[in-house]
């Protein structure tokens, strides 16, 4: 086989491999494995909520879009369809209870359902921000203490 043919074939193979890699890791890349993402901050649920109440812009810059681990006394667990939410209540407002709402990864729905109100828990989730009534954590997992 002539050298230039080898070079062209080689380049085509490299091109195909590069294309497949771009497809897999860029275009079709997976969502993070939320359960195994390390928490950027570990705080008490009360301090976390207070940070947003005190200065929501500073808190948003610090926490929004990051993985946050919270510790505290759970107030209740709510279930709507397949969405299970562990709730820390710290205030009352126009929307009733206000605090930190942690929606669970499906995998942790059953475990969250079994959490006892008033029990100490540690949960970890991706912070979506503060909607003027609650701070919302999503894709949450329960951390064994």
């Amino acid at each position: 086989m002539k050298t230039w043919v080898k070079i062209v074939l080689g380049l085509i193979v490299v091109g195909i491999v590069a294309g497949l890699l771009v497809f897999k890791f860029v275009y079709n890349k997976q969502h993070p494995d939320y359960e195994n993402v390390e928490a950027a901050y570990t705080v008490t649920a009360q301090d976390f909520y207070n940070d947003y109440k005190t200065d929501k812009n500073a808190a948003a810059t610090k926490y929004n879009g990051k993985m946050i681990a919270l510790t505290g006394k759970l107030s209740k667990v709510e279930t709507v369809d397949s969405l299970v939410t562990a709730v820390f209540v710290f205030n009352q407002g126009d929307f009733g209870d206000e605090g930190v709402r942690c929606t669970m990864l499906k995998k942790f729905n059953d475990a969250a359902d079994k959490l006892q109100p008033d029990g100490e828990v540690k949960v970890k989730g991706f912070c979506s921000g503060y909607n003027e009534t609650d701070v919302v954590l999503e894709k949450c997992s329960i951390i064994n203490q």
Partner: protein
Amino acid sequence: MRTTSFFLILVLMTALSGNAQKYITKTGYIKFYSASPLEKIEAHNRQVNSALDISTGGFVFKVLMKSFEFEKALMQEHFNENYVESDKFPSATFAGKVTNIKDVNTGKDGIYEANVEGKLTLHGVTKDIKQKGSFEMKQGRLIGKAKFNIAVADYNITIPGNVGNNISKTIEVTVDITLDKANM
């Protein structure tokens, strides 16, 4: 400004109705859908705050942009970082009225047409919108539904040329919320 108006409406709703007849949810659902010849793009948000005051018709929504979930991680990244800039504009709000609220009989199960008018704030831009939807009264709960289109350019959302063909210029928005009577 957006949050102030959201709260002003809430305060107004409370003030106007001594006997607050308020229906609320924190787990409403909103879907974005964009269809183009190359690709369909869908995003789901199941963390929508909404309140309706039956006595005044006052109606508010608040949506955190980072709560929208896309099938593809890359789309979600582009949506947050390039299109809606969710670090800069973390939420979208609607504050307005159901103008024919008197037609919604909360004492009787049934489906009632709703005319909704108000201001939608998205990506830091506020526009008047007027849409039709429905409320279904069912076993003490009020199920609100609406489907409408918004033009991305109206909200200063620019889509780069190289991906512009993958995303249509209008986005279909579907709203589906189940409101419960507030205990207060």
